[in-house]
């Protein structure tokens, strides 16, 4: 059964310097509060994993927490670029950032393999693109039945996965719904997991489209109301589209970003 902890304690216990960390979320339910707590606690040398690194990853990168990014699409959705990400890649500011770059299909299947206890997954992908020339974790295998050539990608098994969900019960059973992305696979693929939730309730009532992660498959649950803001939590609050637009200006300028970072680190959640 998952333990119920505070966000600060959960990050302190489960996320270590040098870890491979996936903070998953596909536009919806992004674990922003958890990511910002990682910044506050000053983690370093992280390998950050996520299909769609967006502004909380821009913040982690700009704060110097990461040395490597494993991803498939890095942008500010609907707005444009991630300026801290770009600055790290093109100018190594504040520290160099190594990239391991896949497609969504490849990343999704890497999580599926990880959740399935398999060392790799196969897909129809990458053929003819330049991705295999820059990414070592793309290979090709031959079907033993048809002789077809298929792409192969290795399992992702992060040291820790952090996700945000709508709610959990007191035994740590987690429930999320709406767009559920790859969160279940990311948790099941990881050695440890932390789930931040909008609320802890006595009983989980079934919801259409709901995904339930049993408490025995989760390490810890931390209450973090509005923990996905400026992303959204279906049924709780809407996406703060203005914040995404404002981030463009803050992140474009190193000084503006550094000011923002100082405010964050100085604040308690």
């Amino acid at each position, binding site marked *: 059964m998952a333990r119920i902890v505070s966000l600060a304690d959960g990050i302190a216990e489960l996320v270590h310097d040098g870890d491979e960390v996936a903070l998953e979320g596909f536009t919806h339910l992004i674990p922003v509060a958890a990511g910002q707590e990682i910044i506050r606690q000053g983690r370093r040398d992280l390998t950050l994993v996520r299909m769609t690194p967006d502004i909380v990853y821009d913040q982690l990168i700009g704060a110097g927490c990461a040395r490597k990014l494993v991803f498939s699409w*890095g942008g500010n959705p609907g707005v444009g670029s991630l300026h801290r990400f770009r600055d790290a890649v093109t100018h190594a500011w504040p520290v160099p950032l190594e990239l391991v770059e896949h497609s*969504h299909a490849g990343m999704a299947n890497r999580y599926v393999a990880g959740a399935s206890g398999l060392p790799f997954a196969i897909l129809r992908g990458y053929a*003819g*693109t330049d991705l295999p020339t820059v990414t070592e974790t793309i290979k090709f295998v031959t079907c033993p039945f048809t002789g*077809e050539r298929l792409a192969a990608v290795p399992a992702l098994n992060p040291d820790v996965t952090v996700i945000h969900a709508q709610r959990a019960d007191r035994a740590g059973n987690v429930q999320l719904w709406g*767009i559920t992305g790859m969160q279940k696979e990311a948790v099941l693929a990881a050695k440890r997991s932390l789930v931040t939730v909008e609320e802890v309730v006595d009983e989980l009532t079934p919801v259409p489209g709901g995904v339930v992660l049993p408490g025995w498959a989760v390490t810890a649950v931390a209450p973090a109301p509005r923990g996905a803001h400026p992303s959204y939590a279906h049924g709780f609050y*809407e*996406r703060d589209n203005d914040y995404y637009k404002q981030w463009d200006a803050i992140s474009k300028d190193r000084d503006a970003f550094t000011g923002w970072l100082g405010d964050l680190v100085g604040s308690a959640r």
Partner: protein
Amino acid sequence: MTDHTPDEMMSIAAARALRDGQTCFVGIGLPSTAANLARRGHAPDLVLIYESGCLGAKPDRLPLSIGDGVLAETADAVIGVAEVFNYWLQPGRIDVGFLSAAQLDRFGNINTTVIGDYTDPKVRLPGAGGAPEIAASCREVFIIVRQTPRAFVEKVDFVTSVGHGSGPGDRARLGLRGAGPTLVITDLGILRPDPETFELTLTSVHPGVTLEQVRAATGWDLKVAPELEHTAAPTEPELAALRALKAA
């Protein structure tokens, strides 16, 4: 003639290319605008599929991102992201993949990864996302992109998603089962691959655009179809629908 911007012409021309009842894998931005416009107009049964897991989304306003709540609320089914790619895209069930591009070459190959050298890029772009497999597996691919010499290049700096490779037979050799790009819609005109050479060829120019303008906006020696068409100007209902969609 209606009073409209080049971007409006582009979105309307792209919307027209979608047929009612088709299934369409929609990228965010220009493709999403065009697909939603088609569904509001001549193609009410167009099935919109977003990589966030929304099958048959029916948004009443333009989503800002591919994971907006309005997509999940209105979808026939919301599924996990692995399922979108594995069960729905990969087997070739989807009629049209609708993509954009930062760079596009004369064979319809797409770059959304880097401008310049990969290890020391001039501009770092967002990366692949769903595009490589959309370009590989949809029955056909439509590309919507503003036509400039920086975007329309002889050779892309990085092949993120394969169009027609280096010409005839390349897709089959690579095991790509969809037909690849069959249509490129820009703010200046419409290009299609030549049936023999697969090189993108101008087949239609938009109202008020000259051939010279299109040539000047293209980074290679642009071929022009023998029977160059003139795109029909946006109708008043088309324009009204587009503007209502963007204002919502």
